[in-house]
């Protein structure tokens, strides 16, 4: 098989990229994770996040 003949599921990341991401996240402290989580949940808690309808482009 070559990349030209590959028709399987989309491979938008490689195993190396996944492992690198996991390693980066494992290096985060609990406090850093909490801050990340707070930044993400904040708009939801405050009702500021807009939910895109189906068929709209990705967020």
């Amino acid at each position, binding site marked *: *098989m070559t990349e030209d*003949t*590959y*028709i*399987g*599921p*989309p*491979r*938008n*990341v490689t195993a190396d*990229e*996944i492992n690198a*991401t*996991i390693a980066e*996240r494992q290096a*985060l402290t609990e406090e850093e*994770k*909490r*801050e*990340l*989580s*707070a*930044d*993400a*949940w*904040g708009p*939801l*808690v*405050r*009702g500021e*996040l807009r*939910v*895109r309808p*189906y*068929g*709209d482009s*990705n*967020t």
Partner: protein
Amino acid sequence: MATVTLNPVAVGTSPQITQRGGIYQELRFSALVSGLTETDNAVLEEAIDAAAAAHSNLVPGGASTNYPGLFCDEISVRMNGTDTKSVIIDYTFRRKSASSVTYLGVGYHDNGAQFTWSGGTALTQHETPWDAYGNPIVVSHAWQGTELDQAAPTGTTSYISSPISVQLPLTTVTGRGFLTIAYPDLVSKAFTGYVNSDIWAGEPPGTWMCTSVTWEPSDTNTSPVTFEFSFTFEHNPQGFQPLVWFINPRTGTPPHNVVSGVGVRQIVWYPSRPFYPYFPV
């Protein structure tokens, strides 16, 4: 003046703490209140007030000093033997709404959220047009002129793509936790039907989908109300975005040499969202 003694050894009481799944669930301890002045059962209320005056958290909803997340849920008062001027108060501190939930996480609302996870993996019947290496599954036959009902001229080779039925491991995980939030329905809509746009739980984008979000009130005394949320995610190693294939109308199967991105395309239908910041697992 009343005297309040926590965990009085003299009356044979001892504190108890219950831990389940690494999380403190229930704390029990007693207080001896002596030197009371009221008569009859009025001493019971006098004792409760005296204990609350001495320790501000010994009131309904009061937070435990040593065990964060536990709150005073039950106060029970009894006389200390035949002594009409001293009583024993039994306190039970529990997690919020401990009686109605099986798992208890800690919600930090504006400071982030923590979830506890459960889940499993099971094999599911699945039809696939490619093998484990991403090759189209194709079988061929060279016509020799000896077949009874030869479909092509002798000396030619016919190719047919042939999807096969396989077992695919599908994983489901459920995260439970509390959020103090004014718009719980916004949270359900913001995740249900979404796939991960980032690498999440060790898997590539597009392979996790949030399939269900439920919420129910856990503590209506907070403002806004605290809800217990349950998020269910399913993992599909082949991704959730639908595929469309060119089908040969004469054979009813895709041509064997169909070209990726042209004759077979993955359609972006489900919206995506990064999962990791919300659920750092």
